[in-house]
């Protein structure tokens, strides 16, 4: 099961979806919004996705995980829109007969999701600037100025 949602992610529901009578182990990774990024204070995150492509690629990841490990269930849910500090932005869960497969597949899924799935994070900093994640690593000064002028709009 893969999903994008504007609402808070119900972790108990994700786990309930994963457990089957044959399952012995469920591993769940929950990505939460942090109050810091590259040493700066973050107050809010905003996610956007290229939604149809994100859903397709998440479905591909689900299939690839099932091909590589004997899994009972796979859930990938990414939240979009504004996400407060401490809330879950992504939940990845897998169930299997044994824990080794559950850990390996879950790690594979979150690593792959973060590399491949077209989702972007806009970081709202305590100093008032708003930047796309990673934006200011390329050409730091230019972008910070740009972000500040954007905010005035």
């Amino acid at each position: 099961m893969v999903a994008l949602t504007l609402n808070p992610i119900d972790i108990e529901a994700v786990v309930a979806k994963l457990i089957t009578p044959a399952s012995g182990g469920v591993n769940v990774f929950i990505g939460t919004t942090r109050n810091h990024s590259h040493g700066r204070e973050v107050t809010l995150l905003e996610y956007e996705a290229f939604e149809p492509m994100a859903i397709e690629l998440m479905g591909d990841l689900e299939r690839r995980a099932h091909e590589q490990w004997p899994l009972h269930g796979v859930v990938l849910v990414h939240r979009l829109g504004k996400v407060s500090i401490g809330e879950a932005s992504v939940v990845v869960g897998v169930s299997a007969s044994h824990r080794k497969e559950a850990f390996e597949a879950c790690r594979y899924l979150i690593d792959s999701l973060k590399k491949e799935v077209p989702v972007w994070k806009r970081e709202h900093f305590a100093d008032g600037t708003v930047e796309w994640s990673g934006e200011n690593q390329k050409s730091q000064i230019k972008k910070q100025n740009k972000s500040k002028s954007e905010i005035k709009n």
Partner: protein
Amino acid sequence: MKIYLRLFANARDLAGFGEQAVDLEGNPRAAEVLDYLSRVNPEFNAWRRSIRLAVNRRYVDEGHVLSENDEVAVIPPVSGG
């Protein structure tokens, strides 16, 4: 040849638009979308190597040959999770 561009995140901010129909000459390859964007805003040159392109929702390399009515998505470095 007409293609449909879709831009996201800071690529959209740099271009100043999120969607655009573009006419490209001859038998264009995906790289020509990046050439086009660099003419729209020269700052795209600095980002060129980190941008990925997806045609009809599948990642392609710069040499991919485009077809009429392709949807070409400009994907800056993703930062989900």
